[in-house]
């Protein structure tokens, strides 16, 4: 063994002794990513497990509550966030309290709000937004005949529509799922334009 090889050998041996069973990685160590370590598995399977772990981590289901928790963790008050995201503070408050449906929120505006909260992609919020979108953007099956109803104070047009349709026409699940999909895609598109190269 040359002197050069010996010095490398000695250094590698030192690394082995120091870090092999260490609970902390060596400094500046970078583990190769998935692209450099193909697993040979179907990406849908890995995504399923990822969603499972996210579901285990998620304690809060309501979108408004999740956004409120994030805002507070960032030390922002409603007025600061509303100004940054170009929202009216009163509407933001309603969204956090679960009183504002997604049918009343443009996907682009929601994307601005998420970006202000440092959310760069819709991924971690997808199940939460999808559930709410399916509820708020429900498409009803066609009903023959007229349905009459009066407007009521403090009841949104959407809520009134839902109340009127209840028991009269069923929800078209497929059309609702498509509407939720369109909504999610529009939010993601806008997020990508707000966070170029960081949304994947």
């Amino acid at each position, binding site marked *: 063994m040359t002197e050069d090889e010996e010095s490398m050998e*000695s250094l590698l041996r030192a690394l082995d002794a120091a870090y092999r069973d260490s609970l902390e990685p*060596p400094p500046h*160590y970078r*583990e190769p990513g998935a692209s450099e370590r193909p697993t040979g598995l179907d990406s849908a399977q890995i995504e399923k497990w*990822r969603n499972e772990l996210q579901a285990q981590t998620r304690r809060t289901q309501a979108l408004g509550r999740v956004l409120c*928790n994030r805002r507070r963790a960032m030390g922002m008050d409603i007025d600061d966030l509303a100004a940054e995201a170009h929202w009216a503070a009163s509407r933001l408050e309603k969204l956090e309290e679960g009183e504002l449906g997604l049918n009343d929120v443009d996907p682009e505006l929601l994307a601005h709000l998420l970006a202000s*909260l440092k959310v760069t992609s819709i991924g971690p919020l997808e199940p939460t937004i999808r559930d709410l979108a399916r509820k708020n953007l429900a498409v009803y099956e066609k009903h023959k005949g007229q349905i009459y109803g009066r407007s009521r104070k403090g009841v949104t047009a959407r809520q009134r529509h839902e109340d009127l349709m209840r028991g009269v026409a069923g929800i078209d699940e497929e059309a609702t799922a498509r509407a939720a999909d369109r909504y999610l895609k529009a939010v993601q598109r806008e997020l990508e334009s707000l966070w170029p190269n960081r949304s994947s």
Partner: protein
Amino acid sequence: MGDDRWREILQLLRAKEELAWNQVIDWYFGDVFAGLLNQVRRLNSRHGGPLPEPDVIEAGRELTFEAFRVAMEEIDAFEPERGDLQTWIYWKGMARSKGLLGDRLRQERDRMGQESLDLEPEPGDLATRRRPIAVDQATPETTLVSKFDRIELRRRLDTVFGRMRPNQVSTIIEVWRLREEGIHNPVEVAARQNGRSVEAMESFLRRARQDFRRIWIQEYGEAPLSELL
């Protein structure tokens, strides 16, 4: 895993903010899983391959879940100046892999009628090959001394590496990891992975070792590294 999106939300991660952790899982689950599955496959093969592939994959998944769980618990100990969050999370899983899988692998191997209960050394597995005291001869005192030595050695290496150029350190570490994985020509593989010629990589590593030695002497005098091994 060279992606530093986590830096923008590190404070939120330390505050255990739920959405922040979901973002981290979203970004890095695939990378951490790929690394840990690779680790499980290596451990399994080192034991003679007692686990069938579906069990290996399931163990990789379990380890990945465990890595994220531990990372969430221990995030306050994470030092961002030392490296990437995703590598740190991977390492948390890696550090637990032997504990979580060791018994299972040994049981399976015994069931298959293999002889030794000890880990077979990997090719290039220096610690196993050079360790002066065999595991079954170790006394509590020698274990304690050896643990103390490792901690002291780690402290010294951290100091020297902290004064070196990060790309020199990361290349030395890369060669070490490749060798640990059983690769017989780690310098050549590291050269290829970094888009350098073997000669350029050897020369780069030579300069890195010279810098290491110079700083080591400045910090600890002429005492050779081998004294601590």
